[in-house]
């Protein structure tokens, strides 16, 4: 599937999920999202990632809302240590929305190579620089970590005590963060020089080595989904204003 279509689809699901009344989020999840994950052959990683993302929210929320809902009707347990119905319902609604939010994001990111998505967008006219920032931001963290470790080694070798009390650790910040920032800035300049040499800032259309498939049907589907999303959004707003 063309990456732009995936992006539009994910956006559509998000709008739909946030617009429907809360029990609908679960229906949407089971009826639409899970089958999509299955079709994309990412069901297992999808469920694993989803579980990891949602559980840290969901469990505390259920407990807190359930236990501390003032004036609520106990449904499980008795007295102060009971889970109240209203709290549980509230949690279910919130979790439903978070479920849709997380699912759309995960469906997109697990089924698409970011660089292919960005390439497609650039070919359609999105500025090159945006592609660059997004794709390289994903790579920055491991490099920064590796560099931070080397800097730590160098400063410890000059007598910087890093273990021990808070005072020591605070004093260690400047000699650790300073070189990280300064040398990263130099790298940025050198990288910018190199990019110029690859005609990065040349005005004009780009081509792609990798063929990114797109069909008329998909283009129509994208238009259809986008229109549907707008309509749903409008209906939802109208409903909220009226009721």
């Amino acid at each position, binding site marked *: 599937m063309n990456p732009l279509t995936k992006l539009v689809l994910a956006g559509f699901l998000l709008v739909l999920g946030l617009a429907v009344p809360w029990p609908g989020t679960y229906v949407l999840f089971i009826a639409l999202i899970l089958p999509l994950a299955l079709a994309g052959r990412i069901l297992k990683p999808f469920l694993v990632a989803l579980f990891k993302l949602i559980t840290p929210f969901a469990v505390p929320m259920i407990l807190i809302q359930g236990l501390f809902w003032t004036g609520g009707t106990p449904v499980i347990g008795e007295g102060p240590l009971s889970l109240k119905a209203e709290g549980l319902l509230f949690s279910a609604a919130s979790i439903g929305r978070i479920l849709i939010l997380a699912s759309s994001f995960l469906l997109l990111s697990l089924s698409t*190579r970011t*660089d292919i998505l960005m390439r497609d967008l650039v070919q359609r006219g999105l500025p*090159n620089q945006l*592609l*660059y920032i997004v*794709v*390289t931001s994903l*790579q920055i963290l491991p490099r920064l970590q590796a560099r931070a470790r080397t800097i730590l080694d160098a400063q410890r070798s000059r007598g910087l005590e890093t273990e021990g009390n808070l005072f020591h650790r605070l004093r260690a910040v400047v000699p650790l963060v300073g070189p990280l920032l300064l040398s990263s800035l130099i*790298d940025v300049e*050198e*990288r*910018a*020089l*190199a*990019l*110029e*040499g*690859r*005609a*990065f*800032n*040349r*005005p*004009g*259309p*780009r*081509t*792609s*080595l*990798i*063929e990114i498939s797109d069909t008329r049907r998909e283009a129509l589907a994208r238009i259809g989904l986008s229109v549907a999303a707008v309509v749903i959004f409008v209906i939802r707003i109208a409903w909220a204003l009226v009721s």
Partner: protein
Amino acid sequence: MIEVRDLTYSYPGTAAPALRAVNLSIPRGQVVGIVGANGAGKSTLCYALTGYVPHFFAGSMSGTVRVDGRDIGKVPLGQLAAEIGLVFHNPFNQISGARLTVLEEVAFGLENMGVERGAMLPRALTALQATGLEHLTERSPYSLSGGEQQRLAIAAILAMEPSVMVMDEPTSQLDPVGTREVFAVLRDLARSRRATVVVAEHKLGWLAAFSDRLIGIHNGEIVADGTPQEVFSSERIDEWRLGQPLVTKVGRAVEVAEGRPRTGLLPVTVEQALDALS
């Protein structure tokens, strides 16, 4: 064909010019080495030959640099990239980061140039073969060794088929194996005469072995211009702080010890030294 006329340039915010009244003419296909102390102006000259001065670095420039007749001071940098390439000394910082495999990295410049897909793959593969990387097409650029990364930078520029290739200390961060690999690529490039090649380097023995011509820079001025032997045998070599290959120093030391006057040309390669000393 490179024509530099009366080029004087100062970086922004500096008083002293980095290049002074430089005049230089390089015919097509020549292989030129640039030597000089750190800060003498080698890198600045490399930037001037490729348009980074004045387009990237601003500053004040007078004089002209013409490549194949065009004044590159007047052509935007993005358009120059197709004809003039610059390879820098840090292999890691030349990885664009925008592509995930070696093959895509080499094709990146071609994509930016809008080259049609059918032509891209052959050009990329030719460049990878010229740099000995054809077996690494599917690897991540970050997984390569320093020498391989530097050859990748060269391949990425080669694929764009520039008429001029300039390299600013391409082996300064590399170990002996990487150095050997890069100079082998440079030697092949030189032999094929596909492009005019200009290389600034401190590894003088290596440079002398494969350059047709050496240019010596001191304090922003060209002080020497001739064959490697002519330049390194000059009496003013210390005054100009250009350095000499070790074999040249040995040759001169033997000359001095034997009380011989300056004979003219000193050896600049091991082979020449063995010839002269046997």
